[in-house]
């Protein structure tokens, strides 16, 4: 559904700001694909290239069987795009915005109502309210409805959950799950690593480079170091102390635990426990754990 090869893009007068370097990505039909990375990684630039809004400096991209440069007019009818910044008409009402987007795609709200029904029922009590006066969560739902109104084959969602609290984030991902069942391919970006596991496949992006493209499970399986969750009475001191232990590559806070990562050498629970004990720490707990997406991301950033 998306094939991008060798995509590069720079900004600035002499092109000194490299936004994307040699990006390869492929998304299959019907997939929920996540582009995961921090602010400034190049996510939005890639979205804009794939949605025909800006031109890449080099490389080629095909979306829904259409070239993003040559066939941009046709492609625009087939894709739905929800940009990171709220871009609906603030001074039109909820219903007016929706009717407007339906009309520019030459369709009606009724024609594809089944796609938006779930989401729209929550908006309906506010249908006469100006979009600008909606709450953040409601704006997000309206934007999603407008991106869906012409029944796109592929939906591009640029950071739909940024700045959104846990409850609304959960709801939003449930909506994406239902849209996927309708057969819509979804390309979604997020800075939240914990959302990666909700995708079929993901690409990790940092400084304009794709670090990895894989299923969340395969990515985690590919983490080839020993990893431990560690607790002790003085967590931050324990972290510093562990950095000096043999065969330890990194130790960093991770929720209630420290995550302690080996370098190429083998490390056992005992080594860590004994080191902390010798260094005067108490209430020590060491368990071998499986890496999370965030551990993988940090590992790939370093290498």
């Amino acid at each position, binding site marked *: 559904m998306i094939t991008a090869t060798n995509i590069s893009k720079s900004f600035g007068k002499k092109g000194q700001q490299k936004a994307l370097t040699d990006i390869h990505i492929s998304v299959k039909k019907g997939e929920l694909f996540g582009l995961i990375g*921090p602010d400034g990684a190049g996510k939005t630039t890639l979205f804009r290239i794939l949605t025909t809004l800006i031109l890449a400096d080099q490389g080629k991209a095909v979306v829904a069987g259409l070239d993003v440069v040559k066939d941009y007019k046709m492609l625009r009818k087939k894709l739905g795009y929800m940009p990171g910044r709220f871009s609906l008409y603030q001074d039109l009402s909820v219903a007016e915005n929706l009717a407007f987007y339906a009309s520019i795609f030459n369709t009606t709200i009724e024609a594809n109502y089944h796609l938006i029904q779930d989401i729209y029922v929550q908006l309906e009590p506010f249908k006469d309210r100006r979009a600008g006066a909606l709450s953040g969560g409601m704006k997000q739902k309206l934007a999603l409805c407008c991106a869906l109104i012409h029944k796109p084959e592929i939906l591009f969602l640029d950071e739909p959950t*940024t700045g959104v609290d*846990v409850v609304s984030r959960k709801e939003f991902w449930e909506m994406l799950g239902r849209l996927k069942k309708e057969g819509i391919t979804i390309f979604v970006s997020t800075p939240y690593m914990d959302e990666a596991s909700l995708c079929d496949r993901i690409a990790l992006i940092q400084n304009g480079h794709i670090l990895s493209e894989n299923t969340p499970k395969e990515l985690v399986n590919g983490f080839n170091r020993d990893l431990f969750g560690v607790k002790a009475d003085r967590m931050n001191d324990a972290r510093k102390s562990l950095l000096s232990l043999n065969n330890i590559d990194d130790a960093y806070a991770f929720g209630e635990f420290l995550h302690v990562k080996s370098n190429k050498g083998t490390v056992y629970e005992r080594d860590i426990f004994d080191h902390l004990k010798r260094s005067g720490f108490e209430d020590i707990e060491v368990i071998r754990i499986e890496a999370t997406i965030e551990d993988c991301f940090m590992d790939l*950033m370093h290498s």
Partner: protein
Amino acid sequence: MFSNYSIVANHLTKIFGEFKAVDEISFHVEKGEIFGFLGANGAGKTTAMRMLTGLIKPTSGKASVAGFDVFTESEQIKRNIGYMSQKFSLYQDLKVWENIEFYGGLYGMDKKKINVATADLLEKLELTKEINVLVGDLPLGWKQKLAFSISIMHKPKIVFLDEPTGGVDPVTRRQFWNLIYEAAESGITIFVTTHYMDEAEYCQRVAIMVDGKIEAMDEPARLKKDFKTNSMDDVFYRLARQAKRSDS
């Protein structure tokens, strides 16, 4: 009588028209504590923070920050706190040293103190070579670390951090928290809001706001125990989904 506390709030309330944005919240924060302030969008976090930083007057209740009354001594409060947020931090079109000098001046530091603080701060962040770079040209993570260091360059008693790590990469996010720990160890009280639940674990205590009220407040480990779960995410989710009011 509150000498061990940096922040004391008693039934602190803010009403806008008919709307109780903050509804009788009471809590205290100890000196040098890292205190997390969580809540869904629209729960009242920002309004509470604005009252505590002396930016808006409460409707009723009592609160003191760094020993000063939020009703009558808001100017003294502003002089004794630091503030940093993701949205408003540094001037993008000023150089690194210009930003430091500007904020040092705002905080009432003299030229000599500013120079000493500048050298210290840049060395610690390993930004000495970037002293003449425009802040707008720095990577986001560096900007946030710089903004935090500037917000405590005048050695305030308390620093308020409003979602300081939003969108920052996971490595830089942890470096940022190391800076927070160091500041707390030097005696600065940390009042921080975040959407990352793993960061809630880095706080000594957290308060969770729902619909203008504090619905839970304790050490993360105890909250998880009370809710019989092993994730803060779950604690937060169960409290926040009861919210009746929508976000802003």
